[in-house]
C-alpha cells in the first residue's frame, strides 16, 4: 500500500498566478505530431480565495465534475482557471504518462472562455466549463482523429460524433484526444501506433486498454473525466487497472454515430470519471436515441443522478459461481470478496447465479469481433481518406501496400481471423456457431437476472501487468478480457469501480453488471459501495 497516497491537506491550492508553457513532444513512434508541438503561453491572473477549498488542500485538477460545477456556479473559480490548472498538470505529467495522442490547449482555452460567459449568464449545466478528454476513436470536426493508427494519421473528420455534439452543446472543454490500442483492438494500449500509455500507479505497467489513455488521463488528473469505447471491456478493464470509475452503458443507449466502427454489434461509448456521481452526470449528457445510429434505442433517458439517492437495502446481488476459480489472481478474488461483504453489511442480499456459457465467451468474442472488424475495416483502401502507399503498380497493389503499411500487427491479425471465419466453407463453423453460442450466453444472463438485481464480479483477472509482458502472445493478451466480454455479447450495462489495491499498490476493480437498460441499479450499487469506502479517493504518487 506504500505506493498509494491519500489526499492530504497541503495548505495551498494552485498557485494563483502562473505561467505555463505547453510544449509537448513525444515521439515514441517517430511519427509526426503536429498538435503536440503547439506552444502556448498561459497567463492566469485571478487569485482563488476559498477557505473551504484551501482547507481540503485540493487542487482544481484533482476535483470531480460535481465539485467543480459547484465552484463554477458560485463564481468562485472560472473555467479558464480550471482549464489552466488541468493544462499545467498535463504539461507536468504527459511526458511520463503519454495519455494523449493530440492535445488541444488553444481550443480548450477558447471553449473555457465561452463557458465562462455561459456561467456568467447563469446558463451553466453540470458539464459547462469542465475539461474533458475524448478517446481518439470519437470523431471531432476539424480535429485529427487517428484511432491510434498510422492509416488515419492525418484524418481530420468533417463532422462531429453525436457524443461530441452533445458535449459541445453542454459547454464542455476538450483538452485532447486520448491514446488507445489501434482501432480499439487490444487490452494494454501497446498496439497504438503512437506508443503505449503508462499506468499512473506504476509507469512500468500498462494502463489497460483499449481506452487506456482515457483511463490514465483521469487517474493522473490530466482531465476531469473522459469518454472511451467498450467492445469487449475496453472501458471497464482500463478503469480497473487505473483505479477510476468506468462504465459501458447498454448497447443502444448511446449513439455510435461518429464512433469509428470496430465491431458494430458490440461497440458502445461510455465515461471514465473519478466517482460514480460524475459517471451519472456524463451519462445524462451522452445517452439518448439518435436517428443517425439506427441501433440506438428510442427509450426515455432517466436522470441518472436520481439513482444515487437510493441504497442497496433489499437489493439482490448475483455472484457467479463460475468466477470463483481459475485464472483469477488471489488478491483480486480477495478484494472482490471483501467488496461483496461491504455491500452485504449495507443491506444487500447475495445469491449464487450460474453463467455456464461464459466459459465460451472469449472464443465467441474472438470470432464475432474480428468478423465484424474485417468488414468494417474494408473501408481503409487509400482512396477516400487516410494513408495511401506511394509508388504502387496497380489498384490491387495499391490496396495491399496501403493496408500492409497502414495497419499494425494486431489489426492485421484480426482482419485475417475475421476474413477467414467469414470465408466460403467456414462461415457456419465459425461465425454462425459463435452467434448461436452468443444466444446461450445471453440466455444465461436472462435467467440470472430473474433472481437478482445486479451481478458482481471482478473486472479483470489480474492487476495491471508490465509493459511488454504479453505482446508476443495474443491469446494471453485476449485473456485479460475474459470477465468483461460476456457483458458486451449480451449488450448489458457494466461498470467498474475501485475496490482495493494489490500488495504492489495496484488498483483492483469491482465489476457490476445490470440487466438491459438497468443502468440505474448498477449506479445505485456502485454509489452505495463508494459512499462507504475510500478506494476511489486514493491517488497515485506522481
Amino acid at each position, binding site marked *: 500500500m506504500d505506493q498509494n497516497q491519500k489526499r492530504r491537506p497541503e495548505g495551498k491550492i494552485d498557485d494563483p498566478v502562473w505561467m505555463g508553457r505547453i510544449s509537448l513532444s513525444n515521439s515514441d513512434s517517430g511519427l509526426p505530431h503536429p498538435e503536440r508541438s503547439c506552444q502556448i503561453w498561459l497567463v492566469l491572473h485571478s487569485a482563488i480565495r476559498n477557505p473551504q477549498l484551501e482547507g481540503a488542500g485540493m487542487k482544481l485538477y484533482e476535483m470531480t465534475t460535481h465539485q467543480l460545477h459547484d465552484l463554477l456556479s458560485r463564481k468562485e473559480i472560472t473555467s479558464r482557471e480550471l482549464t489552466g490548472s488541468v493544462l499545467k498538470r498535463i504539461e507536468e505529467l504527459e511526458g511520463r504518462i503519454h495519455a494523449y495522442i493530440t492535445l488541444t490547449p488553444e481550443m480548450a482555452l477558447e471553449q473555457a472562455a465561452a463557458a465562462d460567459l455561459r456561467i456568467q449568464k447563469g446558463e451553466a449545466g453540470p458539464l459547462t466549463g469542465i475539461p474533458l478528454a475524448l478517446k481518439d476513436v470519437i470523431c471531432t470536426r476539424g480535429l485529427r482523429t487517428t484511432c491510434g493508427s498510422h492509416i488515419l494519421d*492525418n484524418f*481530420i473528420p*468533417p*463532422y462531429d460524433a453525436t457524443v461530441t455534439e452533445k458535449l459541445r452543446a453542454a459547454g464542455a472543454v476538450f483538452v485532447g484526444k486520448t491514446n488507445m490500442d489501434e482501432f480499439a483492438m487490444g487490452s494494454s494500449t501497446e498496439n497504438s501506433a503512437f506508443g503505449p500509455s503508462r499506468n499512473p500507479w506504476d509507469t512500468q505497467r500498462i494502463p489497460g486498454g483499449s481506452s487506456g489513455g482515457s483511463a490514465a488521463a483521469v487517474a493522473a488528473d490530466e482531465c476531469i473525466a473522459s469518454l472511451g469505447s467498450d467492445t469487449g471491456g475496453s472501458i471497464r478493464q482500463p478503469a480497473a487497472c487505473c483505479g477510476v470509475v468506468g462504465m459501458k452503458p447498454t*448497447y*443502444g443507449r448511446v449513439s455510435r454515430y461518429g464512433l469509428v466502427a470496430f465491431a458494430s*454489434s*458490440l461497440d458502445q461509448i461510455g465515461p471514465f470519471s473519478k466517482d460514480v456521481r460524475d459517471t451519472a452526470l456524463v451519462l445524462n449528457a451522452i445517452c439518448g436515441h439518435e*436517428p443517425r445510429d*439506427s*441501433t440506438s*434505442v428510442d427509450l426515455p433517458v432517466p436522470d441518472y443522478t436520481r439513482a444515487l439517492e437510493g441504497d442497496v437495502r433489499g437489493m439482490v446481488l448475483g455472484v457467479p459461481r463460475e468466477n470463483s476459480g481459475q485464472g483469477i489472481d488471489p488478491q483480486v478474488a480477495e478484494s472482490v470478496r471483501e467488496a461483496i461483504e461491504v455491500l452485504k453489511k449495507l443491506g444487500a442480499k447475495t445469491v449464487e447465479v450460474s453463467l455456464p*456459457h461464459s466459459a*465460451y465467451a*472469449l*472464443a*465467441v468474442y474472438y*470470432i464475432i469481433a474480428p468478423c465484424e472488424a474485417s468488414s468494417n475495416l*474494408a473501408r481503409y483502401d487509400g*482512396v*477516400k*481518406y*487516410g*494513408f495511401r502507399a506511394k509508388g*504502387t*503498380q*496497380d*489498384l*490491387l*497493389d*495499391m490496396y*495491399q*501496400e496501403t*493496408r500492409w503499411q497502414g*495497419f499494425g500487427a494486431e489489426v*492485421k*491479425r484480426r*482482419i*485475417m*481471423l475475421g*476474413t*477467414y471465419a467469414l*470465408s466460403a466453407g467456414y462461415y457456419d463453423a*465459425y461465425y*454462425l*456457431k*459463435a*452467434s*448461436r*453460442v*452468443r*444466444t*446461450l450466453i*445471453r440466455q444465461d444472463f436472462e435467467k440470472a437476472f430473474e433472481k437478482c438485481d445486479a451481478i458482481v464480479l471482478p473486472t479483470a483477472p489480474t492487476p495491471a501487468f508490465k509493459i511488454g509482458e504479453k505482446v508476443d502472445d*495474443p*491469446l494471453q493478451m485476449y485473456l485479460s478480457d475474459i470477465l468483461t466480454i460476456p457483458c458486451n*455479447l*449480451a*449488450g*448489458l450495462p457494466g461498470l467498474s469501480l475501485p475496490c482495493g489495491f494489490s500488495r504492489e499498490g495496484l488498483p483492483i476493480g469491482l465489476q457490476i453488471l445490470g440487466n438491459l437498460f438497468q443502468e440505474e441499479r448498477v449506479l445505485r450499487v456502485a454509489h452505495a459501495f463508494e459512499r462507504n469506502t475510500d478506494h476511489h479517493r486514493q491517488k497515485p504518487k506522481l
Partner: protein
Amino acid sequence: MKISKEEVEHVALLARLKFSETEKERFTIQLNSILEYMDTLKELDTTQVEPTFHAVARKNVFREDQVLPSSPQDLALSNAPDGDRGFFRVPKIIE
C-alpha cells in the same frame, strides 16, 4: 494445423493485405493457436439454438424519406489522399 501458409496467403488476398515471408510464418502459427482455441465451441450442441446477431434485437428501422443537406464536395474530398478537381483519383483500372 487448422490453416496452412498457403491458406494464409489466400485469406490475405481476400482481405487486401500482404505479408512478408517472416510475417506469413508468424501469422500462420498465431492464427493456428487462436483457431485451435475456438474449437472449444464444438463441445456445445447448438442445433436447436437461434443465432444472436445483435444483443438488443431491432429490425427494419424506418424514417421519413426527407431531403437533408449533404456534405459539400470540397469537405467530402478534404481527406482524399489524391483528390483532383472534385474526384478521388485512383490507379488505372480499365485497360
